[in-house]
């Protein structure tokens, strides 16, 4: 009898992940639920460690650019952009204005397709598959544009130390303007579809909200922080690449809930389309690459705004052909702690959309977790050195 009583009132433990339809990448959440209400949550990342930082130290400079490009399939431009800027900073290489503009064009197109992708995923998570199909259809236009500019849809191979590899011809700029005009109307349609839908409003209003104080305390970055009213945009603060030439305003909302996240990303979508148009129109003349001799020893740390938020690269060289150390802090790692206040008190039905609301990219983030005999273990530097591959 006691057993029956206990079972009736026990809280149900619902695992989401490492493999679950709500997650595009492996991560594990353990929810404790009472009926439909979530009362406790624990998260665990580290399922997809790929040892990128270590690999960066084992390759010559020219190959590391391609390696960092493959950290993320969506942020495949902002990682190498940050990386080459760090190397150029160490070596004192002055990149031409045209190269800076071309880098910025790619970075903004990446933001456009990433935010469209997010809108589609958000639709998928709330079971609105038509929105998913629609936004991803329009996103294909951006991918086609990428293919026209660089020959590749995802891995553009655009950045190189000292400039960019692919020039933009007059003809390409003209047809890109047409595509951008189309995307502008598509972005308006997506915005209307998301913000005017009463069901989405009901599913998103007040769901997964994060106060400004919490966002600051937990170190949220990017659209996740801006949705809570933190006006931080690395493009505005650091003015890297060609962002110094344009007057950008960080797009903010105040509630931090799913609707606020959508508001921020859709406003950024419009902003990025506008900025890309401007960049194409004001493309300066000049060379796209400069020569450089060798990379002296030195260190540099810098930030760029990936579609998911602030991306930090730390690079250290030692005068040889190899890097001494590369350290990458991708935006999702900074955003993961904000999951806890977002999940507490939500309904089971809201779990997927909250999980998707910070636009997670777990694989870029993953640190290594060593689990031996069911216990997590902290590995010393000595053990890492002896145990390395």
């Amino acid at each position, binding site marked *: 009898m006691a057993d029956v009583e206990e079972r009736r009132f026990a809280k149900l433990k619902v695992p989401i992940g490492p493999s679950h*339809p709500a997650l595009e990448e492996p991560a594990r959440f353990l929810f404790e639920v009472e009926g439909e209400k979530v009362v406790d949550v624990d998260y665990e990342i580290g399922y997809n460690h790929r040892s990128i930082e270590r690999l960066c130290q084992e390759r010559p400079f020219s190959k590391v650019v391609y390696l960092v490009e493959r950290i993320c399939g969506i942020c495949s431009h902002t990682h190498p952009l940050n990386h080459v800027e760090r190397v150029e900073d160490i070596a004192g290489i002055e990149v031409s204005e045209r190269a800076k503009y071309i880098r910025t064009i790619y970075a903004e197109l990446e933001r456009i397709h990433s935010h469209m992708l997010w809108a589609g995923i958000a639709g998928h998570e709330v079971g609105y598959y038509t929105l998913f199909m*629609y936004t991803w259809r329009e996103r294909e236009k951006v991918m086609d544009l990428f293919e026209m500019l660089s020959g590749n849809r995802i891995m553009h191979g655009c950045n190189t130390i000292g400039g960019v590899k692919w020039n933009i011809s007059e003809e390409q700029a003209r047809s890109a303007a047409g595509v951008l005009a189309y995307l502008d109307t598509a972005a308006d349609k997506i915005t209307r579809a998301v913000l005017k839908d009463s069901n989405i409003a*009901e599913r998103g209003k007040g769901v997964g909200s994060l106060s400004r104080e919490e966002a600051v305390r937990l170190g949220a970055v990017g659209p996740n922080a801006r949705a809570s009213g933190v006006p931080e945009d690395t493009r505005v603060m650091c003015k890297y690449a060609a962002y110094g030439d344009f007057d950008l305003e960080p797009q903010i909302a105040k509630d931090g809930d799913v609707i606020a996240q959508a508001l921020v990303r859709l406003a950024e979508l419009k902003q990025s389309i506008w900025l890309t148009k401007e960049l194409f129109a004001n493309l300066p003349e000049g060379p796209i690459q400069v020569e450089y001799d060798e990379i002296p020893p030195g260190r540099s740390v810098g930030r760029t705004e990936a579609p998911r938020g602030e991306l930090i690269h730390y690079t250290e060289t030692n005068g040889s052909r190899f890097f001494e150390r590369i350290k990458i802090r991708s935006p999702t790692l900074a955003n993961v702690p904000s999951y806890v206040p977002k999940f507490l008190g939500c*309904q089971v*039905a809201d779990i997927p959309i909250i999980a998707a609301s910070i636009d997670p990219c777990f694989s870029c983030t993953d640190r290594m977790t060593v689990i031996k005999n069911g216990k997590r273990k902290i590995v010393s530097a000595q053990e890492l050195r002896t145990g390395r591959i």
Partner: protein
Amino acid sequence: MLAAIIGALVYVFVAALLLQGIRRIVVAHSQFRKGPSIFQSFYDFFKLMGKESLTPNVTSPLLFNLAPILSVASMLVAALIIPLAASASAVGVGDLIVVIYLLAIPPISLILGGSASGSPYAAIGAAREVALLIAYEVPFIIAMVTVALASGSLQLNTMAATSWITVLPLAGIAAIWTLPAAAAAQPFDIAEAETEIVSGPYVEYSGPNLALLKLGQWLKTFLYASLIAAVFFGTAIYHFQPVLNFIIQFAIIAVLISAFIAFWQATTGRTRVTQVLKYYWAFPTLLAAIDLVLYVAGIRYMHLLFGWAGL
């Protein structure tokens, strides 16, 4: 009699599976997709029937394996007593109360099987199925009771002699409104919700058991729509050759399903449990209740407005 029974069963099986194919194609086209073959449900069904059925360790095996059979068996009985494409049902009789109970058995077997499978996803899904069942049964039963009162009989064959949508349109709208929830289609597929609870009660089912559970759900969708069509549109139109009658009936159901399930599915996201309850207990229940109250009060508004007394 035997021929009628076998005919009805075969027709219901084929029609229910074809209907899912049509629904998937309509949804696909509204999402700029091509969609699967119209016979996809047949392929799925026969493929699953040939696979192994696994029973999880923690479960109560009897309940777990009984639920799919219960689901299909109840629907086969319902297929015999609902007037499909003739003025009478296959066995000649049919009681409204029995049919309403039979139509509740597939969700209940889903709840039983889900609860017995010992998975937290299935437990949440089963709890949601209970809420869903309560949500749409209320307006549906009120609408049906209104028709029963108006026709003065609980016999479906008698009720279906009149096209009641012309007399009690509000009750008809309320009943049709419950179709997506009864079919567990998109905005109301909360019990399956694959991005949330990984298809809920179905999660531990595999092979023939899964095929039968799915078949029960598909048969229920078709029979539920057939019951609404028979009661509200009447069976007077089925006075042709039997084959033609079946085609007409299937066309009516297909239009109903495409218009009210597929369209809705393509244009909204999934709702939450609380939203479903609020949704069904507000508007459809109100519509059905208005018709009930007006009928009991003796106000025949369609007769007053258009001079209709029922076709």
